[in-house]
């Protein structure tokens, strides 16, 4: 299943224009400065915001096609979305949060084990740390068995140690997920560690030049891997 989007949306300071394609099993990172439109792209893919024009296609399913008036509501898109700050339901225990949209107790147990939060199942979100909340949010998202995963700066609010451990855990999980994953981040190291493709976004558009100035920050990879990671950026370097 492959995600293909081509969207246009007029925002207050610029017009967001984006085309991208992310095959199943790959993670595409949207990087760029704050306020460049990265989060808006993720929100449009999720259906929380609507584009003025464009199409969003996930495999054979058309999630949005403005020309033909197709707008599949968010709740029917079968996607997972991990927000920058975990948005767990404060009135529910961690286990009930993970099981919020999942009727299979064994899947809930497995995910809680996998993410190392089984011991927190009876706690409320306010009783656990930020890193634990993010793990619980990821478990809650994966519990619905999504066709597409959106991550909006999921690790940015965490301290370095917790961030690193969660990134490693996510790399393990990523191998199992055969779905397209879009990650919004302003952390280039994180993007190069986790992603298969990087798209730099500035003022709502792809900006290949922006990434070249930070080329040294990208984690060392083989030249072939780097070529795949950001082919156009390297060409400019």
């Amino acid at each position, binding site marked *: 299943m492959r995600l293909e989007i081509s969207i246009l949306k007029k925002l207050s300071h610029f017009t967001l224009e984006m085309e991208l394609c992310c095959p199943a099993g790959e993670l595409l990172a949207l990087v760029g400065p704050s306020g460049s439109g990265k989060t808006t792209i993720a929100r449009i893919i999720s*259906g929380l915001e609507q584009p003025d024009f464009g199409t969003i296609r996930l495999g054979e399913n058309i999630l949005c096609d403005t020309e033909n008036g197709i707008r599949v*509501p*968010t709740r029917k898109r079968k*996607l997972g979305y991990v*927000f920058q700050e975990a*948005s767990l*339901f404060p009135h529910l225990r961690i286990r009930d949060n993970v099981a919020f*949209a999942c009727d299979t107790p064994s899947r809930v147990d497995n995910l809680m084990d996998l993410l190392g939060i089984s011991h927190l199942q009876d706690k409320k979100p306010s009783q656990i740390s930020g890193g634990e909340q993010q793990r619980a949010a990821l478990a809650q998202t994966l519990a*619905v068995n999504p066709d597409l995963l959106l991550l909006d700066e999921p690790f940015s609010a965490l301290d370095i140690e917790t961030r690193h451990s969660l990134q490693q855990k996510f790399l393990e999980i990523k191998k199992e997920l055969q779905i397209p994953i879009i990650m919004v981040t302003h952390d280039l190291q994180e993007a190069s560690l986790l992603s298969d493709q990087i798209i730099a976004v500035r003022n709502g558009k792809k900006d290949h030049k922006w990434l070249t100035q930070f080329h040294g920050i990208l984690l060392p990879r083989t030249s072939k891997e780097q070529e795949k990671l950001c082919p156009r950026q390297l060409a400019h370097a």
Partner: protein
Amino acid sequence: MDYFPLLLSCKLAGISTLFLLIICAPLAYALVFVPVRGKLFIESLIGLPLVLPPTVFGFYLLLIMGEQGIFGRFYKILFDTSLLFTFSGIAIAAILHTVPYVIQPLKASFTRIDRRLLESAAVLGCSNVSCFFRVVLPNSLPGLAAAAILSFAHIMGEFGVILMIGGSIPKETRVASIAIFEYVEAMRYQEAGQLSLALLIVSYMILLAVNLLEKRNHAS
């Protein structure tokens, strides 16, 4: 001393409050979260009882709920009885007159809910109805309690509208506020004083409960 009017007031306030919460919670949810056309007009209509004199509001209710009124006739066909001068009649009048007092705290409470929770629920496949019951209501319990207490207090002191619709029929529509008025008119000041004191104590307890809830709400 006849305490039946006080009990009748409590019964009226309790039943009406229950219905008000059932009616107003989804209405407030729709007003806060659902993009409805003409929301301003709807909100102004709902708020009318706040600015209209109770006798004017009661007069219009009398026209609608009387046997010649559209609602009164419909009620007569359904239940073969009149609404005027009955407990059901004053309950409906009290409910309609108290709607804005319940809607306002509910709206304030719903507005305070973190929008990300609603977005999270939508992403997880929740419909609007499911989101209302599973996310919005459980996270608005202090607001619901405040609305219920305010509604109860308002109906306990309701006078003009009830008098217009129910008159003063002992054990049917003669609630505490009307009984006090009649005691005063008959110069039975001792009974008026006793009943007033009872209402004063109930009202004070209610206000104390509202303030405690507010304090707890701020603290959390």
